[in-house]
């Protein structure tokens, strides 16, 4: 099977989705292919800080300026993906005064609104800050939900005619002499939304231009056409706490370091992170000391963290790039800027460019630059509209508020559903059918799950990402089953079973790194619920061999003769 498109985008992270939206809005025909589900790569495994630029105000002012610009744009066009928490750069007694001053001046030079707070003022904002905190600089950091952001970009690209194909792995680049003209992908099920247990097919997709936005995997794609792309993947850990100890983003005000940021997200707070170069972005050690370091170091700023319950930890790999010959040894010194590699200029191979590096915060600017570049290559004259056109879901918050009671949901549930769905809320929630809560911890209702299934098929991990179902305190122990139930009757029993098994295993994967205290108790409860109550570990439906039911207790007691011989 072969199909053709104007532009083919490889990779469904924030960069790829942003590019697809931008090009589709400019009227080009776009296909995006992603080997997993959207956000499967680094985008779904990052800290969720919408940088104000403060972090880079001393070391990398170009990045800092770009951050504040994009920070302001995203608040406008993607309000429902951003929580304007504000941020603090906190100075402890042992942290340098000079650096504090440099940070403050740096912010001002880059146009980042910054205000100095005394220790007492900082603690008024964040009561759990340590008693001996000295001062803080307040900046407009924010929390961003990368899942919603990516999905909103993808939906909008689709609205503009793009084809978004998930579970479609690029297995080869089609290269003809010095020209790349497409790729071969392997579909995990058929093309379109995913269905478990359906056999895969391959497809050749040809294009006038290919954009490689596979982040930390860009080098692997390059290899398929003998192009060398020097991505230096660097891993970082994040640890999720079960409650939101802080309401603002907390940064440590010192030169650079690991474990120096806390970002509040929905009902949780996420601690991060580390920076360690790895060889293979798909296979790197996830180590205990990294988690310990998060808690130990960050409790210097917020002491109650040392006693608090963690839900899970996860790791991501940064797609850092360094131009050949730079030779930086410490990954924290590698620039956070992004690079557009035109392989025609660089390697004499036309038809493809690669984009690597950067940050989620600046995804839109990156997309704009590459879309300009593609248009230039294809001789298309169209200008970028992504900075002004709101993303789907972010307009008309008022209609959400007004429609609040219409949905027969209790307000916290309704509020959360609406935060997640943005202006699509009425479309999704306005149903005559029963709409019970499927995931209690996150308050996700059936209508939202069904809406996500329409888009993701049996890929319950994608449903999870779209809705946040199974991401709360119970880590899915209580609701994975309910989510899978929602696939029926559209999908048959065997398919539902496979989808549930995959989701449950995936939830366990992240939970393992937080397995002590309450979370270990929860893990035992989840295990018991699935293995003991439901016998899902030894389900006869999934085991080979016939079970001899007749040998077991049929429940019917033989009539008992009374002792006196009567009946």
């Amino acid at each position, binding site marked *: 099977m072969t199909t053709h498109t104007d532009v083919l985008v490889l990779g469904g992270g924030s960069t790829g989705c942003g590019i697809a939206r931008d090009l589709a809005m400019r009227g080009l025909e776009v296909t995006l292919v992603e080997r997993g589900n959207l956000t499967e790569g680094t985008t779904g495994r990052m800290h969720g800080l919408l940088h104000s630029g403060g972090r880079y105000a001393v070391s990398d002012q170009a990045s800092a300026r770009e951050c504040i610009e994009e920070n302001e744009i995203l608040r406008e066009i993607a309000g429902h993906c951003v929580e304007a928490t504000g941020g603090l750069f906190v100075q402890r007694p042992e942290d340098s005064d000079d650096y504090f001053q440099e940070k403050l001046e740096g912010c001002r030079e880059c146009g980042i609104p910054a205000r100095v707070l005394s220790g007492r003022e900082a603690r008024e904002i964040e009561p759990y800050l340590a008693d001996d905190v000295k001062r803080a600089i307040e900046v407009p950091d924010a929390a961003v939900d990368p899942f919603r952001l990516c999905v909103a970009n993808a939906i909008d690209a689709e609205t503009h005619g793009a084809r978004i194909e998930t579970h479609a792995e690029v297995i080869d680049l089609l290269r003809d002499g010095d020209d790349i003209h497409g790729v071969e992908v392997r579909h995990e099920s058929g093309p379109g939304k995913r269905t478990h247990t359906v056999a895969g097919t391959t497809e050749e997709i040809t294009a006038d231009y290919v954009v490689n936005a596979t982040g930390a995997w860009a080098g692997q794609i390059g290899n398929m056409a003998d192009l060398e792309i020097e991505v230096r993947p660097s891993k970082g850990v994040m640890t999720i706490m079960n409650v939101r100890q802080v309401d603002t983003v907390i940064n440590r005000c010192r030169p650079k370091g690991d474990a120096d940021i806390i970002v509040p997200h929905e009902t949780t707070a996420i601690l991060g992170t580390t920076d360690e170069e790895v060889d293979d972005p798909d296979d790197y050690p996830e180590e205990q000391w990294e988690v310990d370091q998060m808690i130990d170091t960050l409790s210097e700023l917020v002491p109650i963290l040392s006693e608090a319950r963690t839900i899970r930890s996860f790791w991501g790999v940064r797609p850092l790039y360094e131009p050949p010959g730079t030779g930086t040894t410490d990954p924290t010194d590698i620039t956070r800027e992004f690079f557009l590699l035109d392989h025609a200029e660089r390697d004499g191979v036309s038809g493809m460019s690669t984009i690597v590096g950067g940050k989620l915060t600046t995804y839109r600017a990156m997309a704009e630059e590459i879309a300009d570049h593609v248009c230039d290559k294809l001789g298309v004259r169209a200008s970028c509209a992504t900075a002004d056109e709101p993303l789907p879901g972010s307009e008309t918050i008022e209609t959400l508020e007004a429609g609040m009671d219409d949905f027969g949901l209790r307000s916290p549930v309704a509020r959360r559903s609406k935060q997640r769905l943005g202006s699509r809320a009425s479309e999704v929630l306005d149903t005559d059918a029963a709409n019970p809560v*499927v995931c209690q911890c996150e308050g996700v209702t059936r209508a939202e799950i069904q809406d996500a299934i329409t888009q993701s098929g049996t890929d319950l991990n994608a449903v999870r990402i779209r809705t946040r179902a199974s991401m709360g305190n119970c880590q899915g122990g209580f609701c994975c089953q309910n989510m899978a139930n929602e696939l029926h009757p559209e999908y048959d029993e065997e398919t539902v079973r496979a989808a549930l098994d995959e989701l449950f295993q995936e939830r366990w994967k992240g939970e393992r790194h937080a397995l002590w205290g309450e979370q*270990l108790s929860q893990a035992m*409860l989840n295990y018991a619920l699935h*293995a003991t109550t439901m016998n899902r570990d030894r389900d006869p439906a999934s085991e080979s061999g016939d079970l001899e039911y007749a040998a077991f207790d049929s429940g019917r007691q033989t009539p008992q003769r009374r002792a006196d011989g009567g009946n």
Partner: protein
Amino acid sequence: MAIEDDVLVLGGGLAGTTAALAAADQDVQVRLVTHKQSTLRHASGLIDVLGYTPAGDGPLVDPFDALSDLPDGHPYERVGVEAVREALSFFDDVAGEAYAGAHTGANALVPTHGGTVKPTARYPASTAAGLASDDRDTLLVGFETLPDFEAPLAAAHLEAAGVPFTARGVTLSFPGIVRDDAKVTRYAHLLDQNESVSTGAGETGAREALAAAVEAHVEDESRVGFPAILGDEHAAEVRADLADALGVDVFEVPMGPPSLPGLRLEDLLYDALEDAGVRVTSGVPVVEYETGTDGDRIDHVVVDRTGSKLPHRADQYVLATGGLVGKGVRSERERVYEPLFDCHVPHAADRYDWFVDDVFGDQPYARFGLRVDRELRPLTADDEPEFSNLRAAGAVLSGYDFAAEKSGGGVSLATGYVAGTRAGEEGGE
């Protein structure tokens, strides 16, 4: 001055209540102190004895065939096979009509809300008509407002598991439930009280309305299964009324938390404690202990009642505070421990060795707990009893993975029974 009893049981789950009842049988004064709700709130209410061997063979038709081959240190091996039989018949006497399964040594296969089947030894009367090892055709009824149980899917799953009958499922709306997010206890209460509900046919009792909604869907089936929400205090009556109205047997499919069959079992056990004259102090934790002068015996324990510390003294103590779920076993980043007496809990030093990557693999954490001697006395790392007058029972023990073996209820009964009986014998001397 301390509050004095002969036997003090710490923890009021299945193991603790059984221990208290068994001790009371020895004509001694028994007290049970318990803190929060027990694991029965989460558990299905089934009493598994052994569904699979530790190597994973099964489902076992007769658990007793495998009981004598269990590895050293398994709680059943500690108490011996005979004690397991005695404990079961002790339970059968306590539970009476409320439980079934005693008529045979064979395990029953019970359908669960996931549509899977699982082996168990004793089951609530409400489940009795629903066994998957019974070959009658079955209609399962689910409700559109209860996302935990998708009846048509469960029916298809049962058929995939090869059950010897035809299973069908329908999804209905539950008469009288107006909120989409009503709790399961709300459904039970509606039926318990037979509240008046309005249907297309006017106002009727909730039971009648439910039967009327189901009736049209029954074809040739002689039994109909519902999620486990059919009443709480008057569950037997609710089932009987539905069965009469529908002219079929009615049963419940066990569900996840909060589990009404588990809560009903808890009520039954606490009623039995009252009848047996056991003093129950609930809602308070035991927080510390003192040893006597020799350091070898527990002299008294201290209960925290909203800040004030009350000493409780007894001759014999039974520790039945549960496992990781009941919080009788706890963990921190660096260690796993028993919080009350700091009894030895064997575990790997590196917490990454506490689990394996396959969620249903052989999980070390599932076995965390205390090692005991054949008297069920917790042992130190050097194999010495921690205290001469302390025994342990139930999920606080190590040496078994109840979830994989399907042995949780049985181990709690057997070890509770033995620990309670021995404590009663010694406490009465």
